[in-house]
């Protein structure tokens, strides 16, 4: 019996193929976006886990030198005192236009390296180890890095290991010191003895050498990137919810249309339980099919978005993730589970109405004015409560999580308030209109509000997200661009091959009467993290252009006198230091904070001292990069002269414009993912409106019939339909605007500061909003056109039937 019932129920979809398509597309879209985001997150997390595992393996308790470079002589002296140490030399090497982070270990004294095994071998293999120690040596790379580089021509043996993070290479210290041209330097000394060290028997450390805690040297990608993934998840969830609105509408319609069938089946003796069972089976089948389609779409969507995400993460946080997607059980299962859960949530309303279905009573036109209003009031109350909760969480929970709770509450709360506001606006419009048809238009819009409200809520959320994220990205871009103009004040940037050439180039330029600004720095490993300290000459270029956030009046004079230090915003926030306070640095460095400047996109701390100060504390600082001030017209001539005089490549001499262009390109690529997600969300919301209108269409004939009978042509009715759809979408878009602004405020001021460590000024882009409002109107127009067209083409007999048939 149930089987027969199921067949009867399923026959509905044969007759309403479009409805079935809408249902499947809705569920599949919802699943796809959710799955895509989950897949991206899973991939990124796997990459982090690998990177962190790698870091933990190697980033043991280490000795570092605080204020002068660590040398091989330091290492040998400590070893000869009995310190159980193993040396590490790290550095960046440019191979074929790509930077690679080299880590050199002494494989002889630090062999417990999991990556050091021959391809296919399980355990470290003596012969393999020897091949790494013996010239020409071997470099161990992640397969993806190796594929990107193709560096076999360097004569090195390349070994592949998944355990090596992207963009890094591991080799014996002899090879790394050769590649980096640093025979005497070391980065740190891994401590291999018991913890805590027995300084009693080992002797005291020299003044400039001290322990650095295990993970202070490396930045923790997980903490930083968490917000990014939370963001992605929020996007995914939003899309999922919007997708569910579609499904809810479609299932509601299918239930409504099958009332007659239900009644017939019940009258034929089908128990209510079996009917419900048959419906559950039906929904589950549809959900599973849609879920599988969604998984496939989601997989490809994720694969398409992942490279962008990889760029974002490496650009913003310095976290490398792999840009190939693998099928992971976690997100496959979570995707299917979400589809089933979503389908059951979306159909629950349908089942509840089925429960209340009087078997013998014919479905009547639902006049549900007061009932609906009571619903809307309830929603509005809930929404207001959520708004309150959001504000409270911002005030009392604080931090990144407080920011996200605030965002969630505000968005959901405002969405719940939307029908209430719309209802009242429409009623006000109705009372203000005298023209009977106009009056009817407002009233009819109000009558449709219950059916459309979910879709409109979806539209509003999508619009607000677009405005919020768009404002954030555009503000960021504008600020970043200004900042680039300030930071890249020199007209030409030159990179020498080594210090000797650097000196020669500097002399050559100065002989030509040009102002040369050497870019020299020293990296300090501090307990709180890494700080790069730059030395600057006392030059108006800095005084006039440097992007200061907060600065003492005579900061540049004091700096030039060696009386203080300028620090980046990130460093200031991380260490909670204000202007004129003291930055903790080793002896010899200036401590007084003279100013705080913005340094976007840099995960590490940065500071500036005067050049003499830098050279006093770090005489070995590389002297290979220079900014050159000159008349922009002379750039091509000088560039050519430099290249010829010093045999430099194009990359060694770049003008300001090129650097800015490259930086902006990286920036734009960074936010490509956000753009795609924005558009996708908006697309899904438009589809929701469309399905809602399509759902309402069949219910509206009984209301249209009498209006038509009173002499309003079908054409006019169709026009009014389109107009009403535009009206609703327009109102929604207007209400979405304030929400979007609150959202962008939260993103820029709360989330951004917490996640990145810098605060961005808000820039407003009203033209973008106009564009978005037009886009939503266009969506509403497109969504309304098909139902309107059907209305326009409707045979008068169908309208006449309203009066004869049961509906």
């Amino acid at each position: 019996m149930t089987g027969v019932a199921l067949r009867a129920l399923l026959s509905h979809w044969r007759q309403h193929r479009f409805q079935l398509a809408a249902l499947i597309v809705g569920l599949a879209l919802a699943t796809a976006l959710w799955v895509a985001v989950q897949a991206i997150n899973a991939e990124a997390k796997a990459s982090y886990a690998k990177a962190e595992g790698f870091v933990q393996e190697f980033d043991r308790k280490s000795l570092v030198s605080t204020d002068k470079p660590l040398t091989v002589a330091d290492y040998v002296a400590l070893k000869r005192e009995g310190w159980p140490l193993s040396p590490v030399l790290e550095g960046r090497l440019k191979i074929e236009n790509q930077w690679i982070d080299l880590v050199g270990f002494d494989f002889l004294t630090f062999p417990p390296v999991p990556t050091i095994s021959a391809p296919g071998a399980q355990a470290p293999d003596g012969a393999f180890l020897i091949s790494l120690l013996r010239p020409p040596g071997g470099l161990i790379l992640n397969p993806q890095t190796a594929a990107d580089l193709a560096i076999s021509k360097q004569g090195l043996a390349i070994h592949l290991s998944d355990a090596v993070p992207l963009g890094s290479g591991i080799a014996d210290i002899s090879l790394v010191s050769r590649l980096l041209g640093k025979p005497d330097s070391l980065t740190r000394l891994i401590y291999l003895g018991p913890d805590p060290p027995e300084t009693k028997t080992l002797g005291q450390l020299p003044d400039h050498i001290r322990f650095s805690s295990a993970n202070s040297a490396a930045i923790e990608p997980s903490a930083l990137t968490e917000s990014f993934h939370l963001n992605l998840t929020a996007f995914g969830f939003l899309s999922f919810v919007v997708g569910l609105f579609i499904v809810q509408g479609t299932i509601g319609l299918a239930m409504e249309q099958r009332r007659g069938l239900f009644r017939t089946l019940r009258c034929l003796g089908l128990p209510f339980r079996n009917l419900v069972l048959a419906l559950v089976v039906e929904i589950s089948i549809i959900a599973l099919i849609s879920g599988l389609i969604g998984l496939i779409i989601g997989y490809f969507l994720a694969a398409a978005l992942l490279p962008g995400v990889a760029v974002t993460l490496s650009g913003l946080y310095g976290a490398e993730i792999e840009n190939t997607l693998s099928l992971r059980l976690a997100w496959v299962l979570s995707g299917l589970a979400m589809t089933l859960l979503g389908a059951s949530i979306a159909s629950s309303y349908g089942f509840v109405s089925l429960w209340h279905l009087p078997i013998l009573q014919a479905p009547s036109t639902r006049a549900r004015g007061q009932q609906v209003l009571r619903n809307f009031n309830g929603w509005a109350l809930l929404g207001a409560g959520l708004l309150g909760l959001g504000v409270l969480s911002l005030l009392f929970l604080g931090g990144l999580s407080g920011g996200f709770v605030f965002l969630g509450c505000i968005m959901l709360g405002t969405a719940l308030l939307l029908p209430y506001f719309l209802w009242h606006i429409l009623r006000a419009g109705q009372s203000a209109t005298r023209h009977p048809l106009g009056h009817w238009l407002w009233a009819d819009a109000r009558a449709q509000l219950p059916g459309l409200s979910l879709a409109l809520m979806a539209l509003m959320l999508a619009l607000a997200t677009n405005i919020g994220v768009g404002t954030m990205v555009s503000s960021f871009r504008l600020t970043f661009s200004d900042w680039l103009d300030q930071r890249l004040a020199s007209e030409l940037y030159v990179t020498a091959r080594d210090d000797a050439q650097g000196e020669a180039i500097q002399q050559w330029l100065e002989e030509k009467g040009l102002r040369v600004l050497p870019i020299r720095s020293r990296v300090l490993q501090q307990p709180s993290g890494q700080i790069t300290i730059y030395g600057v000459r006392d030059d108006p270029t800095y005084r006039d252009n440097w992007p200061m956030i907060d600065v003492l009046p005579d900061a540049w004079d004091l700096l030039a006198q060696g009386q203080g230090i300028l620090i980046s915003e990130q460093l200031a926030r991380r260490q909670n230091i204000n202007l004129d306070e003291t930055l903790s640095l080793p002896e010899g460095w200036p401590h007084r904070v003279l100013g705080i400047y913005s340094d976007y996109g840099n995960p590490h701390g940065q500071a500036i001292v005067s050049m003499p100060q830098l050279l006093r504390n770090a005489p070995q600082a590389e002297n290979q990069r220079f900014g050159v001030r000159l008349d922009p017209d002379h750039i091509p001539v000088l560039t050519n002269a430099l290249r010829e005089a010093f045999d430099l490549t194009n990359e060694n001499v770049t003008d300001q414009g090129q650097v800015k262009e490259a930086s902006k390109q990286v920036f734009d690529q960074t936010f490509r993912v956000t753009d795609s997600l924005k558009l996708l969300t908006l697309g899904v919301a438009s589809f929701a409106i469309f399905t809602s209108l399509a759902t309402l269409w069949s219910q509206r004939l009984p209301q249209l019939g009498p209006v038509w009978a009173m002499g309003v042509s079908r054409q006019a009715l169709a026009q009014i339909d389109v107009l009403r759809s535009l009206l609703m979408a327009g109102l929604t878009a207007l209400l979405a605007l304030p929400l979007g602004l609150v959202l962008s405020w939260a993103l820029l001021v709360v989330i951004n500061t917490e996640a990145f460590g810098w605060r961005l000024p808000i820039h407003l882009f009203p033209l973008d909003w106009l564009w978005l409002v037009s886009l939503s109107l266009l969506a509403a127009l497109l969504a309304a056109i098909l139902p309107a067209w059907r209305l326009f083409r409707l045979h008068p007999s169908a309208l006449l039937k309203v009066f004869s048939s049961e509906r």
Partner: protein
Amino acid sequence: MSVNRFLLCLCLLAPSPALAQGFAGLGTEADGFAVPVPDVPLTFPMDHGPHPDFRIEWWYLTANLEDELGQSYGIQWTLFRSALAPGEAEGWQSPQIWMGHAGLTSATEHFSAERLARGGIGQAGVTLAPFQAWIDDWQMSGQEDLSQLTLTAKGDAFSYSLEAQAEGPLVLQGAQGYSVKSPEGQASYYYSQPNYRIAGRLTLPSGPVTVSGDGWLDREWSSQPLSENQSGWDWFSLRFDSGEKLMGFVLRGANGAKDFRSGTWISATGEVTPLPPGAFQAVPLAQAEVAGRKIPVRWELRLPEKDVFLIVEALNPQSWMDVTFAYWEGPVAVSGSHRGTGYLEMTGYE
């Protein structure tokens, strides 16, 4: 001669995974390294220093010691040099690798420690004038002619600091220092100083002990010392109450090959007699379970032409050197036709 030292070095430097096949093939190729040739006189003090053109080399001192209560101890101090390629280079580019082993044995305890270091940076090495051999904080230093040495080493649970005074001349092993190791002609340069009087202090977990006794230094270098058909070796350096000394070794044949036996007899007056092949005989009498394998810790040695019949017994059967390439090495007591003490080293027991 202490053949296991070859294994240690060669395993470390093996061009192919060689452990599974014993050390097959390793001794036959010299790969551009210098090769020992007969009739090249050793020159001192130069030959006390390193020979980077040869693949492997060691400075190897063992001592039998007693504390004031008459309790016996043994110590080992060894510095190995192994070259990845012939010659020397600056800094990290040096192809030389150094390895230190230290052992301390009592009747009830045995400790071992290991150090590894790169050449070229000063972390380990050997220099002359004055003589200095070191790795990390371990040191063997003193007179350029090795007549006086100071020794220090330490591990997690032990350390020692000893003074050694030579009371006799150097002994050139084999033919004037050219020591043949197989019927196929593999050989090394090999000399010893078997006449050290030693005094100093051991530090054990139970506390410091003042000791004195006798020491034996071996110096050896080569590039292709072993035959393919040898699976392990048993090496004895024995010092008799009569003042006579015996160095003897058995390179155990594998794959049906015969054992290769050789040695040197040193008279009480210091006359050195290389033993003809086969003259020295060694038969295991009893085995002990050591580190999961059976190892002979009681031996019968015969040297019929000198009317020598000896029972050699380990002071501590568990003298297992638990280092990267583990082996057995410890002090022994000698009884039979002669009484005395000495050191025994055994490798290749699986």
